């Protein structure tokens, strides 16, 4: 420890020298993971074989059990240990010297640093985003295959099991490996900066949260390699169908555990960071709305996510251990699965929406050059959605055969949740009113979000009404609704956030022209794809079918054509991101002239964000207020904007 105390300040930022020879195999990294993963797999398999031999179970080599224990539990732990996610803790537990303050794993100095366990929240944020956009691409290509199959009635390209697998994988990847973690990635980058904090409260936990994600994603994808194909019961994975499916189903059951653990750890980290690491003067009522949004989202995650973990364990236990949670012939209760599942999965809708609300609030204020209209009500409506969000889950079960009396109360709460959501929409519109609107790409996506989310919200009103829901549920109307709120809603806000913080993350400007092209192609492709689904569904096309009645052939062809346009639009996005990151114009520290703290430091920010702790003196959105300041920074990069520096 004394050695560390003597290390000069500058040395903190120097990466550790590369290891040589055999030590490269024992130091943290992919080389060590390459032998620790199979080793842990062998340990898991050995344990299964030993205990089955001990208990005289036949057969001793049961591949279902080996898959669950060795492939899906111990091997990933071996991988995480190999890359070094547990190094610090294991050193500490065993009493060896820890590398507590050398910060060798802080900051990124070359692209290789992004492939290491890194504790810098900014690096982790970028790791999150690149990873999630990889899975976005994979999930999107699956959607393209689905639309190719659906372009014409009858079966053309894939068989039914593959089709059901593609549909389920598409949803699972987009929800658990794209939308939820993409928001976590954006917040990981922005929230500590916005709070005036040097990092998250628990940087090593933060790194572990990130590395659980590729584990979960690869697990989902590996399901295709399982005998019988990938899990094919939709992302809802209803019992008892799920307990009877081929082995691929357990890859979903377990993948959700890893992704869920990642979510829960990140949420705890956000909560502690937001509560304890706000800069002096940063009261709750001075926090940017993105911080508020992630505060409420993290509460939702911490409370709700254990329920989906439980629901998936129950299904898996029914298969592996012959428990009978959902086996009717043994006294199981089928609806129990849906109640537990939706008690998570409805709040999950808000987990996938509230961070987006936060992003839009930032973008709206900055590009309208006006304070957010009704700041406190905006924050309170987030809390309102948080509370109400736990009282509406049964609206997914209006036709499921649940207790009839439960339907009207759940309809009323579902309707009332439109009120805080409406408050947010109207407040954004009022924020724009009489503003000075700059239609940069983030603002276009914000406007696109508001208009699409209004349509998705209105179709939500139809679905909250029990009689209409009875006609519409499990049809393409539902597919249309969920894509209006999750694509037109969440994904548009993710794009807005990516463009908004791109200069801060990379230190370079994106191409505005390509950004706008991306927006318009996405907007047209999106509406052409999903709007016709409303009436196709109501007229009688059920969802999750590879083959459908010929009467819907024409509309499905139209939908598929627009979906290919939508798919192609992301090529423009990726081209813009890659080219701009590589050689875009150098970004100033505050290209949008924003007041929040992340823009008061260099682009990209220094390793520890602020050279001195900022002093917060006012609200975050005081645009147009003469002389108003959100925070005072002494020194640091804020000198770029001389007028904002107090010294």
């Amino acid at each position, binding site marked *: 420890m004394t050695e560390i105390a003597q290390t000069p300040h500058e040395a903190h930022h120097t990466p550790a020298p590369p290891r040589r020879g055999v030590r490269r195999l024992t130091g943290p990294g992919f080389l060590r993971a390459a032998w620790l993963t199979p080793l842990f797999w062998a340990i898991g398999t050995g344990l299964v074989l030993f205990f089955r031999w001990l208990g005289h179970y036949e057969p001793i080599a049961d591949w279902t059990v080996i898959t669950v224990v060795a492939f899906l539990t111990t091997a990933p732990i071996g991988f995480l240990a190999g890359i070094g996610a547990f190094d610090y803790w294991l050193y500490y537990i065993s009493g060896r010297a820890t590398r507590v303050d050398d910060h060798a794993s802080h900051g990124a100095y070359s692209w290789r640093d992004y492939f290491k366990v890194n504790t810098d929240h900014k690096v982790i944020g970028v790791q999150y985003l690149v990873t999630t956009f990889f899975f976005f691409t994979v999930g999107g290509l699956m959607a393209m295959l689905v639309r190719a199959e659906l372009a014409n009635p009858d079966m053309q390209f894939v068989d*039914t*099991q593959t089709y059901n697998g593609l549909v389920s994988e598409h949803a699972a990847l987009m929800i658990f490996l794209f939308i939820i973690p993409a928001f976590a990635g954006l917040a990981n980058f922005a929230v500590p900066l916005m709070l005036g904090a040097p990092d998250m409260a628990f940087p090593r936990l933060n790194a572990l949260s990130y590395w659980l994600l590729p584990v979960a994603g690869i697990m989902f994808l590996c399901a295709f390699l399982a005998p019988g194909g990938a899990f094919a019961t*939709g992302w809802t994975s*209803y019992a*008892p169908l799920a307990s009877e*499916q081929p082995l691929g189903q357990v890859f979903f059951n377990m993948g959700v555990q890893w992704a869920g653990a990642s979510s829960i750890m990140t949420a705890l980290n956000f909560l502690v960071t937001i509560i304890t690491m706000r800069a002096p003067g940063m009261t709750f009522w001075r926090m940017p709305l993105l911080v508020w949004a992630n505060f409420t989202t993290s509460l939702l995650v911490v409370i709700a996510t254990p329920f989906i973990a439980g629901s998936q364990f129950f299904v898996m236990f029914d298969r592996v251990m012959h428990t009978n949670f959902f086996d*009717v012939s043994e006294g199981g*209760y*089928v*609806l129990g699965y849906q109640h537990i599942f939706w008690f998570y999965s409805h709040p999950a809708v808000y987990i996938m929406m509230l961070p987006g609300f936060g992003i839009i609030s930032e973008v709206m204020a900055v590009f*309208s050059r006006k*304070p957010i*209209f*009704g*700041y406190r009500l905006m924050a309170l409506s987030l809390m309102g959605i948080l509370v109400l969000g736990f009282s509406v889950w049964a609206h997914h079960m209006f036709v499921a*055969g649940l207790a*009839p009396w439960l339907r*009207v109360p759940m*309809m*009323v709460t579902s309707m*009332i949740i*439109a*009120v805080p959501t*409406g*408050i947010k929409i*109207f407040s954004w*519109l*009022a924020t*724009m009113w*009489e*503003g*000075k*609107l700059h*239609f940069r790409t983030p603002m276009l996506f914000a*406007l696109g979000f*508001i*208009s699409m989310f*209004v*349509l998705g919200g209105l179709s939500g*009103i*139809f679905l*909250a*009404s*029990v*009689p*209409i829901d*009875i*006609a519409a*549920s*499990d*049809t393409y109307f539902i597919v249309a609704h969920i894509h209006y709120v999750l694509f037109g809603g969440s994904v548009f806000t993710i794009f807005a956030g990516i463009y908004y913080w791109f200069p801060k993350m990379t230190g370079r400007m994106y191409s505005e022209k390509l950004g706008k092209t991306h927006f318009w192609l996405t907007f047209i492709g999106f509406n052409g794809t999903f709007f016709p689904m*409303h*009436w196709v569904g109501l*007229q*009688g096309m*059920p969802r999750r*079918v*590879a*083959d459908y009645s010929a009467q819907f052939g024409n509309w499905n062809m139209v939908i598929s054509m627009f979906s290919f346009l939508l798919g192609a639009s992301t090529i423009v996005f990726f081209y813009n991101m890659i080219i701009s990151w590589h050689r875009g114009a150098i970004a100033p520290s505050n290209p949008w002239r924003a007041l929040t703290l992340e823009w008061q430091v260099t682009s990209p920010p220094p390793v520890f964000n602020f050279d001195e702790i900022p002093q917060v003196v006012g609200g975050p959105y005081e*645009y147009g207020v003469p002389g108003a300041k959100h925070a005072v920074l002494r020194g640091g990069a804020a000198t770029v904007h001389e007028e904002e520096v107090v010294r």
Partner: protein
Amino acid sequence: MRRGSIVRITIYGVLAGIAASLVAVLVPWLPTSASEEMDRIEFTFWFTTVICIGVFAVVAAAIVYSVLNFRVQPEDESDGPPIHGHTGLEIVWTAIPAVLVTAISVVSAIVLARNDDAGPNPLRISVTAQQFAWKFEYPGDDKVVSGELVLPVDKPVKLTLHSRDVIHAFWVPEFGQKSDAVPGIETTLVITPTRKGSYRVICTELCGLGHATMRAPVRVVEQAEYEKYLADEAAGGAPDESSGEAVFVTAGCGGCHAFAPARSDAQVGPSLDAVDPRGRPLDEFLLESIEDPNAVLAEGYQGDVMPNTYGKSLSEEQLDALVQYLVDGQKGSE
């Protein structure tokens, strides 16, 4: 706000409302109703639509007006007016949506109560779902069971739904009503058909590989014709309960397998028109495949797809009859 801008924003709102109304009217959103319940659902749908068009028009007008009027001039680096909020406005846009959704809730609750009410003496039909077929049990002493749902027009029907394996869902788009058939519990559905014609039951809950093919014909007929149908089924069809053909229909074989004598052309499982018994006696091979579908897999098909419960759920006589029916129906067997 100046008067000119009030006029303009109103015009935008009206135009947006007209555009939305045209989309609402010109697109055939709902199938033509064939039941009293669907009539009420349609009413709720249009009631909600009118309110939603109003909300949409307000939001669209605000967005269009802002985009057209508040676009910044090039080189303008100034800020907008520092308006932090307006308590009156905030109360208004909390209260009005609350009133609107309350109105929709009240209408919906009333419609729901009426759609659940089958009246004092409905016709009771028991529906059994299984992978991937529907079976309908009619009331009366003859205990008619068929794979077709025949309903008398203008008479309330109470369906009781059961499932033998996984969750299925019963939906006839023109009737509006829908309910899951859940293993272990009984669910009910009320339908009062108002229009004679032919429809289809569609399974809307993903139930496995044959989900998309899980359909059943529905006919709405006059009361007299309904009674005649039941009598005919009872006379001609009743002994057929144990005939191979009846077993083929009620066990749902046609949901997955093509078989010409049963006029089935499903492609989920292998065709039964020309079974290759792998050099064994055909009847023995068929019986084994029904009782243990994984014993021999046809090329290009996976195991664990077909339920392995038929050996238990069908009686020995039914299995023999089914095997005989399949043997007799083989192409080129004469």
